[in-house]
């Protein structure tokens, strides 16, 4: 697989899988307004994923469509980071996962607007408005839960502690990251890490929350080695096109 295609799939898979996790929570939100707000974020992300998959599908020139990339790839072909596939567990986990990824996406898409790849810089520019809003919402929820009740503080801290081990992977350079950075189309992930650290420190400080000291980390998503959760997600998401290959929208 060429590195450009791989790079596109990393971006699209992250957006798709996170979007699907949010969609799973639709009708299970803590209250109506939050339910709708979460679905709105999911829709923004699926829009991003669809645009990138459509472009990626053209690359191999074998008549592939965006749907093929979403519904007819196996678990080990998905290149999303492990954090995006982590299950909803409770609202605190959902908010924390969202915040950690929004903070990443925000810096990442700002940097990607400078890409020499015109499609990537255009999609980054387009997504930035949405991502800026996502980060604002999830940051406020972190602070709100951190400074809310004893129960909300306890739960959000547990979520941070649980998900923290998946964050170093965000800044690890895959082959595609390296190649695209070298030809001016990609993003320097160590710059993103600095900005991410700063944002996360700021919000956790405001939320009276602790940054985990544990340096243990889990990785593999960018190479297609996933946690046990992705397989279950895909089984559900891909069921219908798997069973009825000729089904159309």
């Amino acid at each position, binding site marked *: 697989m060429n590195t450009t295609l791989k790079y596109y799939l990393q971006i699209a898979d992250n957006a798709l899988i996170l979007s699907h996790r949010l969609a799973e929570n639709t009708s299970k939100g*803590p*209250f109506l*307004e*939050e339910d709708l*707000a979460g679905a*709105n974020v999911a829709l923004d992300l699926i829009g991003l994923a669809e645009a990138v998959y459509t472009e990626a599908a053209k690359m191999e020139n074998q008549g592939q469509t965006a749907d093929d990339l979403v519904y007819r790839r196996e678990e080990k072909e998905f290149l999303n980071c492990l954090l995006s596939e982590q299950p909803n567990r409770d609202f605190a986990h959902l908010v924390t996962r969202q915040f950690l990824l929004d903070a990443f996406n925000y810096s990442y898409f700002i940097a990607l607007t400078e890409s020499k790849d015109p499609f990537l810089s255009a999609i980054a520019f387009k997504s930035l408005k949405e991502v800026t809003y996502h980060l604002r*919402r999830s940051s*406020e929820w972190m602070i*709100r839960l951190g400074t809310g009740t004893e129960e909300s503080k306890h739960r959000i801290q547990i979520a941070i502690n649980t998900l923290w081990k998946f964050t170093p992977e965000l800044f690890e350079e895959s082959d595609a990251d390296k190649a695209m950075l070298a030809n001016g189309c990609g993003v320097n992930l160590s710059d993103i890490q600095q900005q991410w650290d700063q944002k996360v420190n700021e919000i956790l400080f405001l939320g009276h929350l602790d940054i985990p000291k544990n340096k243990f980390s889990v990785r593999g998503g960018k190479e297609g080695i996933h946690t046990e959760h992705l397989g279950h997600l895909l089984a559900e998401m891909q069921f219908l096109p798997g069973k009825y290959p000729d089904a159309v929208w």
Partner: protein
Amino acid sequence: MKTADSQGELWEVFIQSKPGQSFKHAGSIHAFDKDNAIENARDIYTRRNEGTGLWVVPSKEIIAVALNESDYFFEPATDKIYRHPTFYNLPEGVTHM
């Protein structure tokens, strides 16, 4: 009083559809604080280009006329025609009167 499954306070949402126009009541939402209220209002009422301006107001801060007072409160003095400025011609170009 708040209970464990509270959805937060009730807030009223007002939307301005174009700059310069008046804000119109759009509906109400639940939220826990000001930031939460303006974002919930945005996510529910302004995601399809409905507006360029947004206000939220805690519902409890709105002073309303009680239903049983409405008769004497609103009854227009229809017999006093000088109270109704219907004798004027509006200049051209005035659209929001």
